[in-house]
């Protein structure tokens, strides 16, 4: 582009417009205006209005997938964990809303063996789905949060199977191999709700809570949870119980069952077993306990090894109880009264064992039961005492220890 033709001041400018800070910044110099131009401008304004309307319309119509919540029960896939695609089952009355799909996918073991799970679990009109097994390493995949509960109770393996019945009904069966009857009974009574009315007989303890069956037999603890409370499900639960009674070895009767049963007439389903930190006391290990008929008084026994250790341990219990109570002598016996609950507790050495009472509302009854228990413990044969001191086997491999 060659030199600009006119470098001198353009003729259209008056003197004021040659100044800095032009006083007429909006001045335009055109002489004619065009109606066509204004019409084109109007068309542009219409276009802008259309753009605005489109934006507003889009805003009012969000993509539903953007706000969808895959975790709500109405969504098609509700499996909370990628690996375990089974529905909620932990609460006895939880109702799974979709039938579970085969859980053994991903890195779960393929074609596991049945372990101690009896064959022919499915009753008439029911069929068995694929089997999944979990060990201490991957238990949390199946039951996160609750894994520690079982790991603390000698957990060996979990066998899981889903039974499908008529009209979409489903029963999930979880069989926990806990290594010993103490642990199985312990898990059974620890998971029991207060309203449950368990029955015991022939080495089996069990109860049915609406749509769920809980069984402890031998070293196994079984939870079978139905999708509803229909007669078909209840019948299948009954079928399961019978199958378990016939199909799982009852095993040796634990010494504590005999102890509490013979001395105090307490059924095995009352028995609790805690391997570590019983009653939140770090020193209390290998504790067996049972609750009396009032539902509150808890009797406990634990082996100490020898008599000296038993005395030391019972003193530790005293100290532990004192941390939330104060001394109270009732009928010449030293008890400890809980500061908040007003309940009575005490512990004493009995031979190589420590026996005690916790949370008793009435001292007299508790003292009587404790005396019975003490006599029974003292009468135990040395063989049993040795076995008790060894305690039941612990978990194959827990992740609770470092």
């Amino acid at each position, binding site marked *: *582009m060659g030199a600009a033709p006119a470098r001198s*001041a353009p003729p259209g400018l008056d003197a004021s417009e040659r100044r800095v800070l032009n006083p007429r910044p909006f001045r335009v110099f*055109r002489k004619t205006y065009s109606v066509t131009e204004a019409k084109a401008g109007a068309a*542009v304004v219409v276009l802008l209005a259309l753009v605005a309307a489109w934006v507003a319309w889009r805003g009012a119509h969000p*993509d539903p997938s953007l706000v969808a919540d895959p975790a709500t029960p109405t969504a098609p896939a509700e499996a909370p964990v990628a690996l375990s695609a089974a529905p909620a089952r932990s609460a006895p009355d939880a109702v799974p809303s979709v039938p579970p799909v085969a859980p053994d996918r991903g890195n779960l073991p393929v074609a596991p063996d049945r372990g101690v799970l009896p064959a022919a679990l499915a009753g008439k009109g029911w069929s068995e789905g694929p089997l999944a097994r979990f060990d201490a390493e991957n238990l949390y995949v199946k039951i996160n949060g609750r894994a520690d509960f079982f790991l603390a109770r000698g957990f060996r393996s979990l066998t899981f199977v889903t039974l499908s019945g008529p009209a979409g009904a489903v029963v999930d069966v979880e069989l926990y191999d806990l290594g010993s009857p103490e642990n199985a009974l312990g898990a059974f009574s620890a998971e029991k709700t207060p309203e449950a009315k368990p029955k015991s007989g022939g080495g089996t303890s069990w109860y049915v809570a609406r749509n769920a069956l809980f069984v402890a037999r031998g070293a196994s603890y079984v939870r079978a949870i139905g999708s509803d409370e229909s007669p078909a499900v209840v019948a299948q639960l009954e079928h399961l119980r019978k199958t378990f009674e016939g199909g799982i070895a009852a095993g040796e009767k634990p010494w504590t069952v005999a102890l509490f049963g013979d001395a105090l007439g307490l059924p095995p389903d009352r028995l609790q077993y805690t391997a570590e930190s019983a009653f939140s006391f770090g020193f209390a290990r290998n504790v067996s306990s049972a609750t009396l008929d009032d539902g509150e008084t808890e009797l406990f026994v634990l082996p100490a090894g020898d008599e000296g250790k038993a005395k030391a341990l019972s003193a530790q219990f005293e100290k532990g109880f004192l941390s939330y109570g104060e001394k109270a002598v009732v009928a010449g016996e030293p008890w400890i009264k809980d500061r908040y609950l007003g309940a009575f507790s005490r512990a004493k050495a009995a031979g190589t064992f420590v026996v005690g009472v916790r949370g008793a509302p009435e001292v007299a009854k508790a003292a009587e039961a404790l005396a019975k228990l003490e006599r029974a413990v003292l009468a135990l044969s040395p063989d049993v005492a040795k076995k008790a001191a060894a305690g039941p086997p612990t978990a194959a491999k827990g992740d*609770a220890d470092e």
Partner: protein
Amino acid sequence: MSASPKSGSGLPLPSFRPSLAPNPDGSPWWARTFRITNVRVVSQLFFFALFVFLLSVTWLSRLKGYPASLFLEVDPLVSFATALSTHTVYRRLWWALFLLVPTLLLGRVFCNWACPYGTLHQFTGWLFNIRNNKNRIDQNRYRPLYQTKYVLLGLFLVLALCGALQIGLLDPICLLVRTFTVAIIPAVDLGLVSLAGQGLSAASNLVFKPAAPEPRVFAGAWFVGALLVGLVGANLLVPRFFCRVLCPLGAFLGVLSRWSLWRIDRDVTKCTDCDLCLKGCEGASDPQGALRKSECFVCFNCIDDCPEDALSFRFNPLPSISRLVKGSPKDGTATLHGLPVISKNLGVEVKAPDVPRRRWILTAALGVLAYPFLRYSKDVNRRGFHPKAIRPPGSVAESEFLERCIKCDQCLNVCPTNVLQPARLAVAGLEGLWTPVMDFSVGFCQLNCTLCSEVCPTGAIQKTSLEKKLGLGAFAEVGPVRLGTAFFDRGRCLPWAMETPCVVCEEVCPTTPKAIGTYDEVFTRWDGKSVTLNKPYMRPELCIGCGICQKECPVIDDAAVYVTAVGETRDGDRTLLLTGKKSA
């Protein structure tokens, strides 16, 4: 202006005087009020407001269905350059057609009718205009400097062809979105929130990011802010400096506008060569001579300023008139169609950008050279990725990411926790400058949030459903999206090193089952007190690298649990564990 401009003597009249009287030429009053330059201002205000509005709805509580990244998605340079680098057109990038078509018909209308950055520059130039009209005319003449933008465009496109997308450095939409996100919005919100704190509750309704619990911070905001001040301030030296000299989008549209059917046309039988048309010429496109189509912003100021009505916007005007002119313009005897030619300058049109061919070759050579310089810097290379270059969920593998990311930082804008930060040179090198990375000392990746993938215009963060992110439903086989893996620094962890209870990390861990477990231990402290310590450990196969543990760790300056990029699922080469290795 009711009187003829030339007759104005004495006191200058105010410029806007409402009057319903017809114009001196007999046309109705509204032909003056609604003349095209006024409509243009309305359009500019509209699009600027729309731009700010869309930025403000780029936020969880407001997003709904709004096309939050609209401006980025109609930007044809974004779609063209990503098509060069990826050989695909992602999601809504076909919307660029809405801009391509008007450009091919009308020229660079976008620059002066819609571009929010152009509007900002024009407004700044207008507000601080202290030039007299003669100076303005001289400032608006074309200069060879203005071909720089074509060189930059060529460089960027060659780089894109090689696989390094750098248009976002200077593309005006990317640049402005980034500037708003990183510098302007935090500053405006700071002011509004403190006003609201003083009791001015109306201010709280204007806040860009309502209910952000803490003021938003961004790495290197000072530099982005300084760049804004510098580029906008340059208008005082050269009007529309950025648009004329640097803008690669303008250059792209300029190349396209050589085929435009309409352009400004000068009637040489009326033009007196007074040069007044240059007074308001935004593009410096020489309307007083041969119009440079590639430079013209179609602002129409020249038409407003022509005292002879010699300029008009016409369909398919002749590209050359020299053969039709009879006689010689030098001695004043020339005529066109029987009318005397007054202008001494018979040029009417320059189609293509004024860039010599050898310079195009230089540009291409520069691009080919720059690619290895950029890509083989260690930080963005497959062999040397930075441990803190943790990309947002849904991001594609790093080399593809760099083919797609335009550094617009819309993802940073929408991120509710402020975890997304513009990458600094140290983390991502020059190639990855301002691309999004996660800084877990600022925020964390919220489990149920996929907003960044929703607003990403180019698919660097692929549109990711919540099911896909969490590995639910149809994605159960693939598993969740992992951003990296968390590690414990036992030397700084309170339970591990300091006999002090703390399990914040386990508490906040959002995965089910939790990726953080604890070894629980009753421990006798140095002072004899017994404490229960929950010493945390990581289950790497469950960790998704969301970083909430790092964010919430009470060791705030250098957290005792921290996430690095290893284990991210977007790239099969960066997994950590042998088991659970899945191709996404």
